[in-house]
């Protein structure tokens, strides 16, 4: 019996287990998935929790419920990967060997990486919304908050779901309007990037939104430390931003097991070939989703497109055929803009988000890089699609794995 081991039962790992269970001969291959946790979170839903749009139960399911019966699920933490021996050592002392390993360990926030962030006010007047605990604590806080300086800061790039911070300030604007508190709340978006938007087409279409919504932007701000006593963010450039309520997107880092195994870069991301998804160092190791160092966005849609290419490449690898340079960096994301509207963007390594129609070129029904109500309904409908189609690895009708340029307004 040959063994495939998948580390991580999040979006990427679960999709791969489903794809491979269907494609591989069960008499020849045993698939095992390892994850420390038993709860699967619909992470795109975290954004809605602080504003009471989603409740925790909307985003929580059991991981095991999404894995095929033929797949073994081991709930345990990984101590180290030992590529030289093709083995994984678990924290409980057990050793699992593999012929082929898929790393799908994702990323998580690392607030301890920002000096002072945890030293005073964490989950009192400093919150994150990238964890269920942070998102629900912030929901509580916002219920009774009477106003002041609301500051959202992105500590450093890259982060998971790069548009989420932007969506957060848009939704905050709408939320405080709804509570008749908008004139009591000053919203500031602090980013290490050169602006809220860095791509020409997005800037042209979306740039005015911040001004319209009276959201202040502080660009080029790379946070050196947070002073919880005087309630200030201080940058390496010596700039200061005062807050009453800080919503922080801390440093995002890959799993510590990657670091313990000596397999990651300075953010614990695994060096990976960007078109084949094979590890740069070990031929029998593949990486999917946020765990890799690919220059694609860290997002579930990206992991979905990768899962189709990776399934083909694992079959190629097993058959001794050359790998397909198939992954083009394709990503597809909704951007909630508040008041029941949203944008939709579709892009890859080479093509920035531009106007057009989606999923069917020229027809739509959804409009790209345009604010519509339908896009908002699309975003809400996506929760159903995620749980019932995407995680199960079923095909998404009309949604191509590789980005289509048809009908797009390319410059």
């Amino acid at each position, binding site marked *: 019996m040959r063994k495939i081991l998948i580390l991580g039962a999040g979006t990427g790992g679960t999709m791969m287990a489903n794809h491979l269970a269907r494609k591989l001969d069960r008499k020849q291959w045993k698939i095992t998935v390892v994850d420390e946790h038993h709860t699967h979170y619909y992470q795109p839903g975290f954004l809605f929790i602080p504003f009471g749009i989603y409740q925790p139960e909307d985003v929580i399911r059991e991981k095991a419920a999404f894995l095929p019966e033929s797949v073994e699920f081991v709930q345990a933490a990984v101590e180290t990967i030992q590529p030289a021996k093709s083995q994984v050592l678990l924290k409980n002392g057990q050793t699992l060997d593999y012929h082929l390993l898929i790393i799908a360990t994702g990323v998580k926030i690392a607030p301890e990486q920002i000096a002072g962030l945890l030293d005073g006010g964490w989950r009192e007047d400093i919150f994150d919304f990238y964890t269920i605990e942070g998102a629900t604590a912030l929901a509580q806080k916002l219920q009774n908050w009477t106003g002041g300086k609301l500051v959202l800061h992105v500590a*450093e*790039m*890259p982060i998971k779901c*790069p*548009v989420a911070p*932007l969506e957060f300030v848009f939704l905050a604007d709408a939320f405080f309007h709804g509570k008749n508190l908008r004139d009591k709340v000053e919203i500031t978006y602090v980013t*290490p*990037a*050169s602006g809220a*938007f*860095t*791509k*020409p087409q*997005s800037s042209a279409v*979306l740039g005015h939104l911040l001004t319209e919504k009276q959201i202040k932007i502080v*660009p*080029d701000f*790379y946070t*050196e430390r947070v002073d919880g006593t005087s309630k200030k963010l201080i940058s*390496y*450039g*010596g700039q200061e931003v005062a807050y009453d309520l800080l919503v922080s997107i801390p*440093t995002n880092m890959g799993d510590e097991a990657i670091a313990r195994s000596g397999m990651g*870069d*300075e*953010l614990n991301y695994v060096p990976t070939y*960007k078109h084949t998804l094979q590890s740069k160092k070990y031929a029998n190791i593949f990486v999917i989703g946020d765990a890799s*160092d690919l*220059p694609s*966005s860290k997002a579930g849609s990206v992991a979905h497109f990768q899962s189709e290419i990776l399934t083909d490449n694992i079959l190629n690898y097993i058959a001794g055929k050359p790998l397909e340079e198939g992954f083009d960096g394709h*990503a597809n*994301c909704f*951007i909630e803009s508040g008041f029941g509207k949203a944008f939709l*963007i579709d*892009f890859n390594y080479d093509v920035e*988000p531009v106007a057009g129609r989606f999923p069917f070129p020229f027809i739509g029904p959804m409009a790209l890089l345009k604010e519509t109500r339908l896009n908002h309904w699309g975003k809400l409908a996506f929760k159903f699609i995620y749980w019932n189609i995407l995680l199960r690895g079923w095909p998404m009708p009309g949604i191509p794995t590789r980005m289509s340029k048809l009908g797009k307004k390319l410059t």
Partner: protein
Amino acid sequence: MATKTIAGVTLDITEEGYLTNPAQWNKTIAAELAKEEGIPELTPAHWKVIEFLQQDYREKGALPTIRRINVACVPTKEFYVLFPGGPLKKAAKIAGLPKPASCV
């Protein structure tokens, strides 16, 4: 696509002034681009950063993060002193590399 002329050479650039053809880059052009970014003279410390960015970009096909620069090249505090304001975007421009960008 726009162009501009520096030291007698016509360069292909983006709307924001980033070179699109790395082959057009040289040290004279870097020094001129630095002046436009408010850096009168490129010192050996600047060159260390520029060369690191170029080497990393060649090897990985992407700009390094500020964290990687901090670990492998120059402490972040000093990076901000060398290229005041927005160090990564300025250093990338002077090095003839693309603008550091997010997805939108």
